[in-house]
């Protein structure tokens, strides 16, 4: 992907790129550390239809949401040599059964054979979480297992 970096003197830096849908999408990084998400307009690629101010924490969360699939893809790549093993991510829906409970309480390993290798929360990755790791609504749980194990995981985490 060809990311264009444009200095904005006195303000900060604009980094953006063309997406396949024909729009420019990118981020303005202000000198004082704030971010702004920008999306260009369809009918006028010079103009922006949205420019959304984000705090560093919000930007981190958004990056995590968008970056999680990449983490899964990366893990999948690593497990390719082991036949029958794959990686998937499951959201902890706010207010659902395991929102506020610990990883150990899911008894996932015992019930499905699959294991939780990472939890993505608010943009940051918590690798190899321990059984006492408490889940929060909005977490993304990255699970490695067989196809059957992963199917069962869906039932456990949804149920």
């Amino acid at each position, binding site marked *: 992907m060809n990311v264009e970096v*444009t*200095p*904005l*003197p*006195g*303000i900060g830096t*604009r980094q*953006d790129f063309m997406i396949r849908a024909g729009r*420019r999408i*990118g981020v*303005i990084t202000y*000198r*004082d550390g704030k971010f*702004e998400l*920008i999306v*260009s307009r369809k009918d*006028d*690629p*010079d*103009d*922006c239809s*949205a*420019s959304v101010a984000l705090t560093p924490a919000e930007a981190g969360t958004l990056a995590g949401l968008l970056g999680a699939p990449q983490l899964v893809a990366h893990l999948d790549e690593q497990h390719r040599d082991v036949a029958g093993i794959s990686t998937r991510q499951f959201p902890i829906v706010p207010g659902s059964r395991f929102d506020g409970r610990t990883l150990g309480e899911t008894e996932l390993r015992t019930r499905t054979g699959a294991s939780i290798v990472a939890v993505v929360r608010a943009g940051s990755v918590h690798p190899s979480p321990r059984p006492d790791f408490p889940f929060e609504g909005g977490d993304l749980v990255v699970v490695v297992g067989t196809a059957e194990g992963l199917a069962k995981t869906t039932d456990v985490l949804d149920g």
Partner: protein
Amino acid sequence: MHDTAIALIQLGAVFFGLGLLGKMAWRIGISPIPLYLIGGLAFGQGGLVPLHGIEGFSHIASEIGVILLLLLLGLEYSAAELMTGLKRSWTAGLVDIVLNAAPGAIAALVLGWGPVGALAMAGVTYISSSGIIAKVLGDLGRLGNRETPVVLSVLVFEDLAMAVYLPILTAVLAGVSFLGGLGAVGISLAAITVVLVVALKFGRYVSAVVDSPDPEVFLLKLLGAALLVAGLASQLQVSAAVGAFLLGIAISGSTAENATRMLEPLRDLFAAMFFVVFGLNTDPASIPPVLALAVALAVVTTLTKVATGWWAAKRQGIGKLGRARAGAALVARGEFSIVIASLTVASGAVDGELAALATAYVLLMAVLGPVAARVVEPLAKSVRGRSAEAAAV
């Protein structure tokens, strides 16, 4: 004690009134500068309410206002940004100078203010208000637009042009001859070169002198350094404003960013006082005679700025709507036009009418600028729609 009480009440009333004006201005989407000027016109000489007892303070406060305005203008862009700006946008910068300085200079010559008046008015109509423009671009969510770097690079070039222009202006105002003027040009070019080199190579040393992790120490050292440099420059007949500006350029990196953040509220306070004092010293009765001329200048220089922006954006491959936006964004004139007018009038080298013309002009342009930036898009679209309709028929 009684005098102090009256002075405090007057000062409090002035600041509170300016606060209300500022709130009103941003609510209707214009810069507060014209309202501050009107506030100043309303007080004092020939105005409604005479202010006594705070002249001493308001005079020095307005001087500090000018120093802070120019210190922050210098801080706004790093030396590296100035250098790349110079390399990338010098053609657009030259077009900007030619198109926008000429109307002011011609008006001054027609009015018989001589070459000195022409030089001053050229500056008044040339320099865009980077403060108003940055605020308006941010408010309208246009910082991510493709034409915005073009607009900013024109502003960067104007910043550099000021570094050369202000020393020349102050030398000429001090009454040096034509040859002496050429000498002043040489000296100011040498000074700005030295400052840029120092800022690029040794900026961290200059920064280290004023920098401190403690905000209180930092503020005191920074303000102290600015006033010292400004005072020394003033003593050397180069004008306090120029000294502060060059100091601003020499401070670089994170120190510059922290300094900007720290000084912004102070600048807003003292600059407001500067506008009021400038308005105070201008007799409201002197405005109506120059109003027609100010309107004519406003119309012409709006068109020339739009043309500058259009041309600069076109060179960067921006579409027609973007070119119109770039042009309209550059229209606003404000604080620096008033600074130039105030330097000129204070020297006594030019007819006092210049202050009236500059006031009326900035009153118009500071209102017109943000409005132009806002309405340009619907306007351009309706024009395009109409021409498309005409083509269809």
